[in-house]
């Protein structure tokens, strides 16, 4: 194994670092969007608005059933074709550039959100009735009850599942290479094709993904310990 291939400056180090940055930014943005979508989805799905709950539930089943790659293609090419069709009457003839990065964030975020919603629903269901009854007895209105009692408790139950999904989504980011985004794994693959030293570059990528996942688990463990201190279990 020739480690000089991974060097910065003369080797592929800079290219790999740029790829890592894309991977991190993509994962972070997708997780933020997906968690927000998931929380919103869980709230609607557990609400008394039957029709809305069914619609959201159906949408999430679809999102969880489709291959992520297909969702990425649908967002990237689908939006692009739709926008072109929409803009054609206004004399705009050409490629309406949908940024591969944001198309990826939207697609992966939507899938992440569909899984997240399940985690939140489970967490809401796990919140014991006692604290909620206490809040009602104190005369707390629904919104303060939710924000100060139900959500904080639910988050503690949701945390392991949410962090699990963060790792799943991190691992889904290489799929966005299919629409031209140069993430860590894509750069490693290109470097392998160019130099024929596949093993070197794929092992380097493997090490980086392992370190990233380990960091996520480390953070998860810390937050969980901190959070459960106050649970008084």
């Amino acid at each position, binding site marked *: 194994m020739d480690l000089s291939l991974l060097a910065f400056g003369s*080797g*592929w180090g*800079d*290219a790999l670092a*740029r790829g890592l*940055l*894309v991977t991190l*930014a993509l994962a972070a943005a997708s997780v933020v969007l997906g968690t927000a979508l998931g929380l919103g989805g869980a709230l609607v799905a557990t609400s008394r608005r039957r029709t809305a709950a069914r619609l959201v539930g159906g949408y999430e089943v679809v999102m969880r059933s489709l291959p992520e790659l297909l969702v990425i*293609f649908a967002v990237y*090419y689908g*939006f*692009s*074709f739709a*926008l*072109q069709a*929409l*803009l054609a009457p206004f004399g*705009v*003839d*050409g*490629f*309406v*550039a*949908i*940024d591969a*990065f*944001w*198309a990826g964030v*939207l697609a992966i975020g939507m899938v992440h959100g569909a899984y997240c919603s399940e985690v939140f629903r489970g967490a809401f269901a796990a919140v014991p009735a006692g604290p909620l009854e206490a809040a009602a007895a104190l005369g707390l209105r629904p919104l303060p009850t939710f924000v100060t009692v139900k959500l904080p408790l639910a988050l503690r139950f949701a945390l392991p599942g949410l962090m699990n999904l963060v790792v799943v989504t991190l691992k889904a980011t290489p799929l966005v*290479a*299919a*629409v*031209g985004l*140069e993430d860590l794994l894509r750069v490693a*693959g*290109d*470097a*392998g*094709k*160019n130099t*024929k030293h*596949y093993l070197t570059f794929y092992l380097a990528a493997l090490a980086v993904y392992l370190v990233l996942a380990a960091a996520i688990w480390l953070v998860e463990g810390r937050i969980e310990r901190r959070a459960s201190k106050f649970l008084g279990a």
Partner: protein
Amino acid sequence: MNLSGLIGRASSICMIVAALGASLPGVSHAAAPEKVTIATEGAFPPFNQTEADGSFTGFEIDLGNAICKHAGLECTWVKQDFSGMIPALQAKKYDFIFSYMSINDERAKVGLFSIPYITDQFRFYGPKGSAVTLPAGLDGKSVGVLSGSTGERFIKEKWGDKVDVRGYDNLDQVNADLEAGRIDYGFNAQLPVSVFLASPEGAGYAWFGPSYSDPLLGRGAGAMFRKDETALRDKVNDAIRAVYADGTFKEIAARYFKPGVDVSAEPLWK
């Protein structure tokens, strides 16, 4: 792409803004072909590959640039996965494809091809000494091909009932599985395989059987355009003829291919 680039992209081309119709993001006008963008896979040496700094090199990059010079075009290369190349052409992400796209009827239905600028015949290869008589020797054997390639169609049509055809995303995966013993033979255009056969990893492997040229295998590789881009196509056609006529093609080919390897597509259109 660095972090500021990311943020730049975030602010400049925000699809949500575009969806609301509040602004018209990066629209490339196909009507002004003086500035054109060309798609390359960037991962198919020696035709095209990506360097550590993100630039592209290879036979097609040099040839494409020479063609652009002759045609008076200002060309920029963009990278695109081979599997999504035709949809992205139709989505007007770039003006034409110059990335070893073999010409066949199926593709000609959805796009417009230039005259072929290169041709390469197909052949079987496998472990040295595997004396195979074709086609009887293929019975029950597994053969690696590029999925979606003309080679895959050809072999399936011709021997699909006897051969276990395995599709791969790229040639390196075919060769890796050949080395690992997961497949018996490979079937591919000769040029990229000649690179493998000349490498240390390919030392134990050799060609066998005849070279195949068949309408199913394509009629050489050409630049591919959208259906309505006849003017640009004609311009590129003239430029291809010009780089063949003035010796530029031969000179570039000599840089990338072994002496004696003839990749000239001239017989196909002369």
